[in-house]
């Protein structure tokens, strides 16, 4: 079936098989490979994208369900080449190593800060319960998000 959606601000009309996941749609059809795949069970968070501003696991979300919605992937965050404050904070805090989980963490952080601009450290930890990082030990990620919230809402 044909879906009409807006991806990272760009209108997209595409015919797709109904069994495609949102991850397959953005990665394979749109070439937006910044969205990663790992656990396939909604617990690791690497495939997080925003649909109408809400975070979803693109690995387990039907692409047809973004028909009529706005989708934001990691590629849609930087504004005209300048990093989003969350992205900048991740760079500054060494909040990534292999980087495979990074797009998912950043999209979750975006969703959190949209909902709650000045979260406590505990708010951040709780919100990230469904995101796994196997490299960093999390502390730099939590630091980066707390710092980003301060940069965005001084």
């Amino acid at each position, binding site marked *: *079936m044909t879906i009409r959606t807006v991806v990272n601000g760009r209108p997209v009309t595409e015919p797709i*098989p*109904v*069994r*495609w*996941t949102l*991850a*397959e749609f953005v990665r394979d059809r749109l070439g937006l490979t910044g969205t990663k*795949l790992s656990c*396939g*069970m*909604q*617990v690791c*968070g690497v495939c*997080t994208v925003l649909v109408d501003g*809400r*975070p*979803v*696991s693109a*690995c*387990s*979300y*039907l692409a*047809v*369900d973004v028909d009529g919605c706005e989708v934001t992937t990691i590629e849609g965050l930087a504004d005209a080449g300048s990093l989003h404050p969350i992205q900048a904070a991740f760079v500054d805090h060494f909040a990534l190593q292999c980087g495979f989980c990074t797009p998912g963490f950043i999209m*979750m952080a975006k*969703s*959190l800060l949209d909902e709650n601009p000045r979260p406590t450290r505990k708010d951040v930890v709780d*919100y990230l*319960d*469904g*995101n796994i990082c196997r490299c960093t030990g999390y502390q730099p990620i939590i630091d980066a998000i707390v710092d980003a919230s301060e940069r965005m809402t001084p």
Partner: protein
Amino acid sequence: MSVLPPFELHRPTSIEEVVELISWDDLPYVGGTELLLAMRAGLLNPRSLIDLKGVAEITGVRAHNGAVRIGAAVTHQQAATTEVISEKLPELPPVLLHVGNPRVRWSGTLAGNLCFAEPKSDVIPFLIALDATVTLVSADGSREMSVREFIIGPYFTARTEHELLAWIDIPVVPGRRGTYLKYQVMERPTVGVAAVRLDEGDSTITRVVVGAAGEVPVVHDVDHAHPDRSAVATAVVDALEPIDDLTGSSDYKRHVTAVYVERALEKLERM
């Protein structure tokens, strides 16, 4: 990454259309939180999926006959942040924030959680504790039953082949207090304890519902506002039929169930 099996998609806009389509091979969905995983794992292979998101009658939350009515298409996050629930059922939102993670809460629904009848659900014990009911609609009419009756066993409900769980009604009871505490080491809880206190006529009832530790929730009512915590814990554990799994052995589950029943009652007393 494994893929979903092929299926057809329906997008009805009314309950009538849904109940025309619904069957064991034609499954309703909203987020597909649990359904899509089961399909990818090969556990379910439906002919079609029926998207409920376009059915206006079941997409909202509203006050109805002394209860709050939550439509089948309402997500955990939506319910947790809806004004009518914050006003009339303030005990519910904190429990919904225990479910999965933010992504699961944004796409998963309370109704889906009930229909899946996952024994480790956080929502089911609390809905039982609140005396919630479900309304099942089919082409032949509708019927209402308590969530307690609806959940028959693990992954097994009273819903028949051509019925849609249309909405959940949670009675609004002034002065009711409720809490939910869970013990969770793995991705899913070892034990979840809902504890509710409400006035019924002259007496006060304290109700404890224990989920996750056994295959079906255990419900225990005491006719007292501040029951002996240890006695309640013992009674609940006696009624519990825990199974060994990755969240703990049955011995350990009995032990932590007693611990968490006491902790939940202690918390309830402070409410």
